[in-house]
């Protein structure tokens, strides 16, 4: 019989898996789900995360700052080259210097350059004019600069950083305050929750704000309550629909938020919130 050295085989397999995992991470910045047509989904070039890609844990603050600065400079240069040469965003060549000027401080602060690429691809897909795109990117860059300075470069991990920053900008553009975004990020980091959940909570809070006219401060509280709740991300949209139903029945945004915080804060779920909001429909409680 063939003799197999299982210990060495297991070591070899582990090495194979690590290599496969690294290859997969480097290739796909997006969801990594196969497309229905068989095309390669999203992502494009792998993210050159400034600072966030390789967190500096070895040296002192000076070494870390120097490393981040170097990584940021590299990322800025790579982004500039991409702006000049990429066919997919060639329509934005007339405003490339505005785009680059907006991106430099954000990338140097630790925002991922890939977030700019994602937004530019979105603008290209929508056929947005160069001026409108530059305006939008300048506003996003300001948000990302401030956010990166608040949450640092160690979180989210490099492979998920761009998606989080894009979602954070979407939330801030739609009325969630910077401090609330940073608060949700700090919660996710402390609780080891996923950046995807944090981003989804921010998006849900922005949608809630639009749906029932929450104030920015209230929407920020809602974001944290939703993120920290035991609700699955898949139920966040149901929460927005419940809020709309509550608003239609005459409940004020303030009371809805109070019920939301009270319910989720005590570890209860969406059905419990519905019971509190509509006691006439569920008279017997549980």
């Amino acid at each position, binding site marked *: *019989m*063939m003799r197999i*050295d*299982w210990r*060495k*085989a297991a070591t*070899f*397999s582990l090495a194979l*898996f690590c290599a496969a995992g690294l290859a997969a991470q480097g290739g796909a910045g*997006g*969801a*990594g*789900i*196969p*497309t*229905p*047509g*068989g*095309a*390669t*989904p*999203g992502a*494009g070039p792998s993210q050159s995360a400034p600072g966030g890609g390789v967190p500096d844990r070895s040296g002192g603050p000076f070494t870390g700052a120097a490393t981040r600065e170097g990584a940021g400079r590299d990322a800025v240069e790579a982004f500039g080259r991409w702006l000049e040469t990429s066919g*997919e965003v060639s329509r934005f060549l007339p405003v490339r210097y505005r785009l680059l000027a907006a991106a430099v401080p954000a990338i140097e602060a630790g925002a991922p350059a890939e977030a700019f690429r*994602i937004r530019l*691809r*979105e603008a290209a*897909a*929508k*056929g*947005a004019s160069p001026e409108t*795109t530059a305006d*939008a990117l300048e*506003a*996003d860059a300001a948000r990302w600069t401030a956010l990166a300075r608040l949450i640092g470069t160690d979180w989210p991990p490099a492979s998920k950083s761009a998606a989080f920053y*894009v*979602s954070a*900008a*979407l939330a801030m*553009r*739609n009325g969630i305050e910077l401090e609330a975004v940073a608060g949700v990020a700090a919660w996710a980091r402390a609780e080891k929750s*996923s950046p*995807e*959940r944090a*981003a*989804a909570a921010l*998006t*849900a809070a*922005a*949608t809630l704000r*639009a*749906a029932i006219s929450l104030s920015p401060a209230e929407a920020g509280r809602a974001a944290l309550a939703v993120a920290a709740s035991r609700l*699955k*991300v*898949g*139920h*966040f*949209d149901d929460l*927005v629909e419940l809020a*709309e139903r509550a608003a239609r029945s005459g409940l004020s945004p303030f009371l809805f938020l109070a019920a939301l915080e009270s319910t989720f804060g005590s570890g209860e779920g969406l059905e419990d919130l519905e019971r509190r909001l509509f006691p006439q429909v569920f008279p017997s409680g549980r």
Partner: protein
Amino acid sequence: MKQDLREKPFGRDPERAARSAEAIMARVRALGAPDRAPAVLAFPAFVRSRAVRYVAAAALVAVLSSLATLAVIGNGSSAQVRFVLEAPEASEVRLAADFNGWTGEGYALERDVSGTWSITVPLRKGASYSYIFLIDGERWVPDPATHQVLDDGLGGGVSTISL
């Protein structure tokens, strides 16, 4: 010689050992045991090499692990999401989203006889996604079937979905 063997309790006279082994083999041959080696030892030399054995074992482990991973994925970490748009006048509709790099490449919707366009996309659960529909390559609209439309900063709206 005997003195040596006594000093080494586990020592053995090589001539006696050879005779004993020969006698055992003679008895085995008398029982009709086949002269040739078992089939497993008849593989070519390269199959018996150590490297090939390691690769074979590694491949086995990899296949088993992949099957386990697929089982986990199949158990609910992704969802089939159907995107639908009523656009009878359109000649082409694509789904552009953050999960496909906003290109719409490979995400053409299919039209039914009533002019309803649809596509089913596998998406990972535990995240929210942004998307729009690109009509005839020049006009884009958020999903009219959902209220969850946010300002995209580019002069329009973007639909979101949480999974």
